[in-house]
């Protein structure tokens, strides 16, 4: 029992932080926002030069064979910069699902490409699709970075398929999305060829777990960044003849942010660790992490706007990037209320009335 990073984990954290701080600049992120929300140069560097994209994928398929703790470290660092990258759809969900529930062919076909960034994956788990043999028809909404993807993991009920971007009958419509760093797409499938996952249950569970951990860790990183940046502003900005950080109401709000963020930190790494260790606590931990970290991020990003005053609600300032990412994380992959309802069941409260 030791709830601190190993030396290796600490090193990964340091590397990732340095990489995103240097490269995932506001300027580059905004350039990506005007396109499809993917900073492709950044993604290539991350996957190939840094070689960290496959960190939680099996070594046999181009990964490093580490776990969700290490993956969370990366997502936290990327989230701190609101980096415009397909980390969620491509790695946390699609690749993770294939690694855990794909056939050997599927693994061999996709994992090395996803790990190198040669291909981008995207996932939609709330598909309203019907299958006729190996062909799908229907729609899938809110597919994050869907317009940038080469392969889709589609879930519908307890079934899961892979669909290639160039499959016949597939239409991908990009949506103008509030969080421009991770725009949604709507997929329309008309008798589109699809490959069922080898073990759909394992794949879907892996996609959920990976997705929850990814956005919770992003939220943690983002929330910490809103605090750090606001503390910096509080020390610089002078109003009423004083540093604004000397006003007690301002200080207390920052302290409250920190109280929440430290809990979110415990939640994220508890959940990642519990999944990696196969602990019985994993389900409660995952629901805790997703709901708590998302709510913390939203609150902190809102506070960042408030505590920056007028400049905080301008397009020019970065506060809205955090704010919109936070909102998107809150509503995707199950709302906070839904996750808490799952916990209510898990701890024996029975059904809701």
């Amino acid at each position, binding site marked *: 029992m030791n709830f601190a990073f190993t030396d290796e984990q600490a090193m990964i954290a340091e590397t990732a932080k340095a990489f995103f701080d240097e490269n995932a600049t506001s300027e580059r992120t905004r350039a990506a926002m005007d396109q499809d929300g993917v900073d492709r140069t950044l993604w290539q560097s991350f996957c190939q030069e840094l070689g960290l994209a496959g960190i939680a994928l099996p070594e046999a398929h181009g990964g490093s064979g580490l776990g969700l703790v290490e993956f969370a470290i990366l997502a936290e660092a990327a989230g701190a910069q609101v980096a415009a990258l397909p980390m969620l759809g491509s790695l946390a969900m699609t690749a993770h699902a294939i690694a855990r529930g794909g056939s050997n062919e599927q693994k061999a076909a996709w994992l090395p490409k996803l790990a190198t960034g040669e291909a981008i994956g995207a996932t939609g788990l709330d598909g309203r699709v019907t299958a006729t043999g190996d062909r799908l028809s229907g729609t899938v909404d809110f597919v994050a970075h869907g317009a940038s993807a080469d392969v889709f993991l589609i879930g519908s009920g307890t079934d899961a398929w892979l669909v290639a971007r160039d499959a016949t009958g597939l239409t991908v419509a990009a949506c*103008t*999305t*509030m969080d421009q760093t991770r725009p*949604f797409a709507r997929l329309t499938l008309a008798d589109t060829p699809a490959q069922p996952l080898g073990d759909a249950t394992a794949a879907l569970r892996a996609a959920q777990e990976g997705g929850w951990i990814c956005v919770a860790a992003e939220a943690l990183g983002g929330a910490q960044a809103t605090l750090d940046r606001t503390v910096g502003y509080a020390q610089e900005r002078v109003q009423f003849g004083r540093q604004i950080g000397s006003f007690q109401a301002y200080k207390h709000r920052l302290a409250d942010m920190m109280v929440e963020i430290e809990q979110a930190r415990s939640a994220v790494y508890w959940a990642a660790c519990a999944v990696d260790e196969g602990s019985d606590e994993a389900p409660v931990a995952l629901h805790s992490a997703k709901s708590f970290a998302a709510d913390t991020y939203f609150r902190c990003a809102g506070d960042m706007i408030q505590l920056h005053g*007028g400049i905080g609600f*301008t397009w020019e300032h970065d506060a*809205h990037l955090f704010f919109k990412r936070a909102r998107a994380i809150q509503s995707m992959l199950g709302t906070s209320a839904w996750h808490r309802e799952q916990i209510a069941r898990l701890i024996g409260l029975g059904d809701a009335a």
Partner: protein
Amino acid sequence: MKLGFSAEDEAFRAEAADWLNAQMHGEFADLRGLTGLTAAAERRKEWELKLGEDRWSVIGWPSQWGGRDATLAQQVIFAEEYARAGAPGRIAHMGVELAGPTILTFGTEEQKQRFLPGIASGKVLWCQGYSEPNAGSDLANVRTKARLDPATDEWVVDGQKIWTSLAQICDWIFVVTRSEEGSKGPKGLTFLLMPLDQPGITIRPIRQINGEAEFNETFFDGARTASGNLVSTPGNGWQVAMGLLAFERGVSTLGQQMNFRNELDAIIAAARDNGSAHDPLIRQRIAKAEIGLRLMRYGALRMLSHTDHARPDGAALTYKLQWASWRRALGELAMDVLGQSGEVTDGSEYHFPILPNLFLSARADTIYGGTNQIQRNIVAERALGLPREPRGNQ
């Protein structure tokens, strides 16, 4: 204490409603239900002219200046019917509600004759120059300078204002300036009326997080206005500005609330549409929003029922905090009702419909016009008599 309206009031209501509905289903049907303040500027200017023409623009003003000497009850009724008819948010707001009453109270007879007809007729639009980049919520920290040029008998203004709402479509601006070199705090401020269309003034829109640009930066570089456009006396600008703040708490709050009503109704409709109206958690939050909105209405009526509402009691000081926090929570509720659908919009422009736009734009409510933090200081110090916040270097 009586909440109902008299038969006379109800007759006034019928008259107002008839006129408004005729406009909103006739000549101005294209403006019905319009939200925000930036769309369809030219048509809205025509609407302001129409209001002026039929004497519905400034009904609370004396009839001498184009008003109707409307009672409080009538003003309440007009605000309600205005919104019920779906008439659009008024781009003449700053003139009708702020500049006009300020001139009525502090202006010379000459200024009244010069400016009030333009406001009442809808021909001249006004905006407000208060905040500055380094003053923020702190009006006493204004740095924009004014000096009287004896050669031309004009005030010459240099500096920068920010958050000047709608400056891009307005004709005149009222500005608080510092006219005594070396003065600090509320002393040495001067309140000036200035034409916007002159070489010394540059307006740059500020894009907000919702993608819209209602606000502007306004730069003054040797901008000029005649000495007769000084309100009150040089150095007395703080008093004028404070008086003007009181007008902000007038009947116009009821008009604002009718917009809130539209937003809440849109949430209720969305919740019924997508079934979230049956979710017990959502029901609680909608009920809270409903309660909050009704209490805003009755709070405003209390405020207005006390005759001297220009010198508000403590309760009036709580209103900004109340509505700003309410609307911010409403925006979050809107998004939770809409779910992920609220995060996408049709078309390729970054421009969101009423509810997601509410969510984003409401983040400004708790900041502009004095942040929630400043408002709490004001309530604590002025209404509750607690010690003032110490200033640093003064």
